[in-house]
């Protein structure tokens, strides 16, 4: 299993193929619908983003509140497709990785190839398990959005799978075909 470290570099991204299982460590930023709307509005207005986007990895998650003594609550991925309309603009600005679940649209898949990025899947509905890999969490922007605020997370060996790579690979169609052909 490959180990990845953030920020992601073009060299590392070139090595990744859909279906690869990876363990990601380092810093990721959370962003869901409302945060995406603000991020894109900010960049289009020429403003400064609340985190360095070059090589950054976004995790589509709105965690539950942390209990006392815990770093974070449950923290699994939300459906990525709702972020599709915002994603190409962020990829154009240097975003390199996205973590979520579910299929991306054609524009995003094309932008992943054009800007040499990667879309990684985390297991949807495994938020308690995934939370164990989060070592630190801090709200860095939009606290008024509650669970939709942007958190900076430090993750240690977050288990992920490559869904869309820069070569046009798509695990949703490949996985299903592989199953149906071996049935």
């Amino acid at each position, binding site marked *: 299993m490959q180990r990845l470290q953030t920020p992601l570099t073009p060299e590392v991204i070139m090595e990744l193929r859909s279906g690869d299982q990876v363990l990601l460590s380092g810093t990721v930023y959370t962003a869901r619908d*409302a945060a995406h709307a603000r991020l894109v509005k900010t960049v289009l207005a020429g403003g400064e983003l609340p985190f360095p986007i070059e090589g950054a990895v976004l995790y589509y*998650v*709105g*965690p*539950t*509140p*942390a*209990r006392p003594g*815990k770093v974070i*609550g*449950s*923290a*699994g991925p*939300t*459906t990525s*497709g709702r972020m599709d309309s915002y994603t190409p603009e962020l990829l154009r600005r240097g975003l390199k990785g996205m973590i979520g*679940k*579910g*299929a991306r649209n054609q524009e995003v898949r094309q932008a992943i190839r054009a800007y040499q990025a990667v879309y990684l*899947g985390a*297991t*949807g*509905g*495994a*938020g*308690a*398990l995934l*939370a*164990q890999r989060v070592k630190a969490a801090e709200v860095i922007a939009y606290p008024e*959005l*509650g*669970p*939709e605020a942007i958190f900076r997370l430090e993750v240690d060996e977050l288990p992920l*799978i490559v869904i869309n790579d820069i070569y046009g690979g798509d*695990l*949703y169609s*490949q*996985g*299903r*075909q*592989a*199953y*149906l052909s*071996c*049935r």
Partner: protein
Amino acid sequence: MKFQWEGRAIRQVPAEKITAVVRELCLEANYRLALGMPEVMAEAAQSENFPMAKEIIKELQANAEIAWAESQPICQDTGMAIVIIELGQEVQITGGSLYLAVDEGVRQGYEEGYLRNSIVGDPILRRNTGDNTPAFIRVEIVPGDKVRIHLLPKGSGSENVSRLAMLKPAQGVEGIKDFVLETMELAGGNACPPYVVGIGIGGTFDGCAYLAKRALLRPVGEANSAQHIAMLEGELLTAINGLGIGPQGFGGSQTALAVHIETAPTHIACLPVAVNLSCHVLRHEVLEV
């Protein structure tokens, strides 16, 4: 407490009691799976032969165990609080509004349980209400002097891929099957398969959607009591699992764990069908007052 009204005993239930019960339901429902779910998941883990799919189901089982052991919600989407109340007609709620009492229970339960606030007060303005209220409440009047309260914390991923169609009666069972399979195809891996598929057939436009949601309350894997509907449930489960979508959509035989259908009488010109999906994190608790 009971009192006589026109010769009949009326049981009084304080609104505070409703609040306490809803609070308790919130604190229980988000950390464990609904009745029947662990069993169908175990069966799925057994029968799934595609290696990655099998691995994913085991991961989901491990997640459920961690959630219970560590008091972490099974899923970060602790949902809309869907509250279905079977209200005995010999019950009077006293000392406050039933609906506000439920909301207060949700407010307390979601805060004390470290559960996520996932509700916006207005669908256009989209400001988070900050306490996961309002709850989404349905009241059914039933015989008796008990109050049964169901809580179904419903995630948005699976709610977003749910659909309804007003079919022509001529389309019949084949039309129903086609619509359900088309819905599953559109949902694909987006809404956390393996799914539990709630289906409503018949009734009105709005009533059909509620039947589909109501179908998710049945203990998972239990068949409809009408033989022809139970048969349709079985046929649909086989057809859905033939699609090959699989756990998380990465391919496999376990796309759905169960199909539950509820039906209702309808108009001579109507054949409504609704599909309300649940992800593999189906949560449902019920308490009786």
